[in-house]
């Protein structure tokens, strides 16, 4: 049986319960999603743009789904250690698939900022949910439609026009499964005209050795002249699978920047779809992945330039050790109308072991002459000359390798514009490379 079928059956059996525990704005889209899914299947390894990972296999285990919205136990005090030193954030936690604001969130919420559950937003901002929810994700692929079919709640971020938010919004996604579980995670971000904000997101799994899957859909609308940064750090567990899809719509003169870091994961597939809905947009996608054991990290990007004078830059770097596998398929589409586009894409990879594998493929679809586009991909080993040079100065081999790997990642880390976060990322990467679990210094998660 196709693994999608079990979720469709689950929905057929429990549709009433699912809808009873969810706002109407979410329920409204379910029949459409269901209709599309009837003819759909999950991609398998070897399918187009899936060289390393099988979505079908990721969904195959008999996961429990929390349709009755039972509160999941979680050590909330532990999450408090998950901060980045020297910055204070507006913190929300998603346990499984349920949003829980931190105790201080309400109190600290700046003027013009809404950061709450989708269920709550359906009451406070019904017209916004109505207008935006599902607009980018619907019909894009089976995993996105399944998310829409099953999502009962999620996270809502709204920044009012002209509001600049100093404090980063922080979202901690936690699994603490006692039995195999799938979480349907959903995020809707609406940045009105001229708004300016950034979000830090991290994924953790508290309980090891219990398989769990997060099927996440993030829809982000960046209004005219608005700016939004999304920093996403996954440090889950060997037994955590993640399908995360980020859909971004950028209006004229807006700026969107993503940093997607996979430090620790079982199997991860990230899809990033960015489309420009007006001229002079700027998009920057940066990412890095460290793979060990038999982990698989797969990033897929697609940036659509549909209007003139926009720029996009993509830099993704991987270090793969042991039997780990990585994949980067990066797409840039430049429409005929998108004159004076400047699009760049780089993917560099280090294979630290003979058994590690990397699949990389840039794809440029350029339908306009007046553009600047470049792309480059490399797969290699650590520089043997540099390694010997360092060792000849007395630096032990393992440490020298670590320093070279850290150096390899440094230009990606250095694109992070929040100083404290940049420092933290350097530390986390170093810890991860030295073989330790890359947990935040005193975090119990």
């Amino acid at each position, binding site marked *: 049986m196709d693994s999608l079928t079990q979720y469709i059956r689950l929905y057929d059996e429990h549709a009433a319960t699912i809808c009873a525990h969810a706002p109407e704005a979410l329920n409204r889209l379910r029949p459409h999603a269901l209709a599309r899914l009837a003819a759909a299947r999950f991609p398998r390894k070897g399918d187009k743009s899936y060289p390393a990972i099988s979505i079908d296999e990721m969904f195959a285990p008999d996961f429990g789904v929390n349709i009755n919205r039972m509160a999941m136990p979680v050590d909330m005090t532990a999450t408090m250690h998950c901060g980045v030193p020297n910055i204070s954030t507006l913190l929300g936690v998603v346990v499984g698939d349920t949003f829980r604001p931190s105790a201080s969130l309400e109190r600290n919420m700046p003027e013009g900022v809404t950061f709450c559950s989708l269920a709550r937003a359906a009451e406070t901002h019904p017209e916004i949910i109505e207008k935006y929810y599902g607009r980018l994700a619907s019909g894009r692929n089976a995993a996105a439609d399944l998310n829409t079919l099953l999502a009962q709640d999620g996270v809502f971020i709204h920044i009012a026009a002209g509001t600049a938010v100093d404090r980063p919004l922080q979202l901690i996604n936690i699994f603490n499964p006692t039995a195999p579980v799938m979480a349907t995670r959903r995020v809707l971000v609406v940045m009105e005209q001229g708004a300016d904000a950034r979000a830090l997101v991290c994924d953790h799994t508290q309980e090891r050795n219990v398989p769990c899957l997060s099927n996440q859909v993030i829809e982000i609308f960046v209004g005219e002249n608005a700016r939004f940064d999304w920093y996403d750090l996954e440090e889950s567990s060997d037994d955590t699978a993640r399908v995360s899809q980020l859909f971004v719509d950028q209006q004229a003169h807006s700026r969107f920047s993503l940093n997607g870091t996979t430090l620790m994961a079982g199997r991860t597939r990230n899809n990033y779809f960015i489309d420009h809905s007006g001229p002079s947009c700027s998009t920057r996608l940066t990412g890095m992945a460290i793979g060990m054991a038999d982990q698989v990290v797969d990033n897929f990007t697609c940036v659509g330039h549909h209007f003139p004078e926009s720029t996009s830059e993509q830099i993704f770097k991987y270090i793969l050790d042991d039997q780990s596998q990585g994949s980067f398929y990066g797409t840039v589409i430049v429409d005929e109308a998108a004159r004076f586009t400047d699009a760049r894409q780089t993917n560099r990879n280090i294979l630290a072991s003979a058994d590690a594998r990397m699949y990389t493929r840039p794809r440029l679809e350029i339908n306009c002459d007046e553009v600047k586009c470049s792309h480059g991909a490399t797969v290699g080993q650590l520089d043997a000359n540099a390694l010997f040079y360092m060792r000849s100065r*007395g*630096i032990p081999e393992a440490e020298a390798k670590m320093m070279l790997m850290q150096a390899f990642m440094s230009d990606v880390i250095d694109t992070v514009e929040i100083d404290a976060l940049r420092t933290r990322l350097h530390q986390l990467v170093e810890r991860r490379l030295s073989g330790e679990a890359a947990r935040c210094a005193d975090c119990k998660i």
Partner: protein
Amino acid sequence: MEDILLNVRGLRAGIDDKEILRGIDLTVRPGEVHAIMGPNGSGKSTLSGVLAGDPRFTVTGGEATLSGVNLLDLSPEDRSHEGLFLSFQYPVEIPGVSMVNFMRAAVNAKRKYLHQDPLSASEFLKMMRQKRAIVELDNKLASRSVNEGFSGGEKKRNEIFQMAVLEPKLAILDETDSGLDIDALRIVAGGVNKLKTERNATIVITHYQRLLDYIRPDFVHILYKGRIVHSGGPELALELEERGYDWIKDTVDSKD
């Protein structure tokens, strides 16, 4: 034997199936300066690389000891800790690794090897300042990535700075003079001389007498086709400068 610092006997080494060093004998005692000269491609850098433990080379015979310790059994890092230093003919650029982090790692690795505590931040910075002064290395280079964007001369100066920090027993300077302007040559050579004591020794590999005017050798060796074919005093370098290598090549090649 006791006062022999470096003892190389019948050393053979090569790369893949190609033999480059074909039986090297060399004895260096504390306080001595040896110059190794020889035509391009004769194996001078290979000899330095093999002694420093460059994994590209395979040793096929012979032995090499430093103060009685078998070098060939040691990792490159332990050879460094035991007091060997190689100033590279082509120093390597390492983008993303700052000079400061690089030197701190090197210094503290050696201290660990010697069972000493790591230096405190202020002790370390003080030491960096003092050592930089020896070769008048520009402070702003210290904040850059290792050798990245350094000029040829700055790279060589940086090598001697590292030597000053690591205080080796035996330093091998592989064409440290190449790429240096006249003033820099004097400064770098002056730095090497300042670091010289009765207990350490230096091997300078060079093509030119010019450097030997500053760093005066006690012995001059000619390496040709992977062997030391001729040794003598400082006057040998002058003779080479005058006559070139042809007479040496002729003698050796006629024997082959």
